[in-house]
């Protein structure tokens, strides 16, 4: 199944383009003593050139495992048991370790939550960026260093020449994340995977980094997969959003439509449960219960045990049969029996 999302007006130009990254039927399980943990259980995801896709979910939803699976970095006891990852016409899941190393950090790069932990403490910031050029280009050392300083300037680091000589511990969290972004984008990658890039940062710094990521996308045309638990971050930056719950995507939609009119009961609950300044609600919407145990998944819809809509609509199917991701309008998909129409695409439940 290929992704058929239709973008909104602001991203019209991407319409015709083929996705640069396409994940289909991805399943990554962890084989632990407690049992088989189905961390990612049938994820389809696509990313077009220059597009920012937000992958949102709470802890344990499988969003980070999805990104690690894309990069083929799943380690024991985890295993990709099914699905394919197409990147620019090549199957990443079929590649050798060596081929994958050449792609990582060059055509697909990554930034993480803890910038200071991701930088090597014994090398200077500039050296670490220059290292990217050393690994993937044939540039001379002087040129590499020059490029590194240019990159630091590009990511908005004041006085880049002297900051290039700084060690990671001398940088603040925001600065370190800028260095990480400079490193990640040094090779002008096609895809940037950003795993909770602003979670460890203060809000005023978070705003700077998000702004920087969007402007770098505009400048370099890098597609970004933005993984986060924070719906606000997604609302600020993403073109399209996929909401994950218990290892599956439960709703996928262009950002504007998702926030204007969320469809899946989980998405609705999630949006309603975030207190926003200035709205002065007396009570927040609550999603009762908590995320199911990934070893012992409920039968039927994984959200059913916490779903109030199921009771309101008196649906019995939810606790018995697992719903498919149903197309409800161009570009919008929802995994929920509420949207089951007498329409031929909707009866494919297993």
């Amino acid at each position, binding site marked *: 199944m290929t992704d058929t999302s239709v973008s909104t007006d602001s991203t019209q130009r991407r319409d015709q383009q083929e996705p640069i990254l396409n994940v289909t039927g991805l399943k990554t399980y962890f084989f632990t003593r407690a049992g088989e943990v189905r961390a990612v259980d049938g994820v389809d995801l696509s990313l077009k050139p220059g597009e920012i896709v937000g992958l949102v979910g709470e802890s344990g939803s499988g969003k980070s495992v999805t990104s690690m699976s894309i990069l083929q970095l799943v380690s024991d006891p985890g295993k990709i048991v099914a699905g394919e990852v197409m990147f620019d016409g090549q199957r990443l899941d079929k590649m050798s370790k060596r081929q994958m190393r050449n792609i990582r950090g060059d055509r697909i790069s990554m930034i993480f939550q803890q910038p200071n932990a991701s930088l090597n403490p014994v090398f200077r910031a500039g050296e670490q960026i220059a290292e990217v050029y050393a690994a993937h280009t044939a540039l001379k050392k002087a040129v590499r260093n020059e490029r590194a300083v240019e990159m630091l300037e590009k990511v908005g680091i004041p006085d880049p020449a002297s900051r290039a000589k700084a060690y990671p511990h001398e940088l603040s969290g925001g600065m370190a994340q800028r260095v990480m972004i400079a490193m990640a984008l040094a090779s002008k990658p096609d895809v940037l995977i950003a795993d909770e890039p602003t979670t460890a940062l203060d*809000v005023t710094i978070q705003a700077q980094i998000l702004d920087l990521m969007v402007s770098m996308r505009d400048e370099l045309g890098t597609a970004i997969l933005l993984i986060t638990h924070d719906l606000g971050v997604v609302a600020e930056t993403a073109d399209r959003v996929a909401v994950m719950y218990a290892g599956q995507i439960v709703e996928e939609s262009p950002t504007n439509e998702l926030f204007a009119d969320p469809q899946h009961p989980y998405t609705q609950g999630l949006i309603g449960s975030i207190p926003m300044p200035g709205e002065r*609600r007396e009570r927040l919407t609550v*999603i009762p219960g908590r995320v199911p145990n990934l070893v012992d998944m409920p039968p039927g819809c994984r959200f059913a045990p916490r779903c109030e809509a199921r009771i309101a609509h008196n649906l019995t199917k939810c606790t018995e049969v697992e719903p498919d991701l149903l197309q409800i309008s161009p570009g919008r998909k929802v995994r929920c029996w509420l949207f089951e129409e007498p329409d031929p695409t909707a009866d494919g439940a297993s």
Partner: protein
Amino acid sequence: MSDPLLEVTDLVKTYAVSGGGFRSKGGLVRAVDGVSLTIERGETLGLVGESGCGKSTLGRAILRLEDPDRGTIRFDGQDITNLSTKEMRPLRAKMQLIFQDPFSSLDPRTTVGGSIAEGLRVQGLDPDQRAKRVNEMLELVGLESYHARRFPHEFSGGQRQRVGIARALAVNPSFLVLDEPVSALDVSIQSQILNLLKDLQVELGLTMLFIAHNLGVVEHLCDRISVMYLGRIAETSSRNDLFDSCVHPYTQALMSAIPVLDPTRRKDRVILEGDVPSPLNPPSGCRFHPRCPVANTTSCVSEQPPLVSVGSAHEAACHVRAPKEADWGRVRT
């Protein structure tokens, strides 16, 4: 005129920081640098700021977990600033703390019931009374009585946070400090805990100091809000005033930096330049001036702005937006 439950005046708390190297000289971090605040009975004050602004230190100093360097703390009419550990003991039950990290705040080797009962033991309740009270508390926070016999590792983060709340409330405190009580929790669990706190606030008439970095979270529970920046209070106001008519440029920036859940409103925000300066070496004058979009007076650079009244129960510390000359009201309580 009023009889506040808590009154903090000019509180200063510094830390010596070692330089790291051998024999290298460390510095003095002024984590809390002259903070005054009052909390009326039954009121909830929100204390908001970014990491390193001193909000948690302030909370701990108020509970006398830290010894303040200067200033006074009056609780329920009594000066508790210099009370010894022994003298503090009878007051302990009246002021409680709820922690951020639900994983480190419970002893992994004690049952949940045992943790909740610890404070009751201090109060001299016998085992039967303690067990009864533990059950009441578990029910109050939405847990079951059989949970008392379980160990913390068997609970989820949200449940542990409920246990932490039960432990604090078991001793029947009149004042509660909540130090980022929901920031370690998942969004859907966060709202469960916030609603629980709201219910408890109403039901038990609690007075609270709610420390958080998230303005949205604070607004949900607080009557008044203070914004801290680098050890000092930048602005204090009622929650409505703060969101409708905040004065301090930092408050404005903080507010506009919060991502909104409406993608159509993306463009309209102020993005602050630069980093939060190190509290080891804070800027001269107004501590916000290097990042401030409106700093234009020489006094911004040279002089610390005092907290000045800018409306009813609304104070701000800014040379530009809240100049001293324009002040008709009181200068700090």
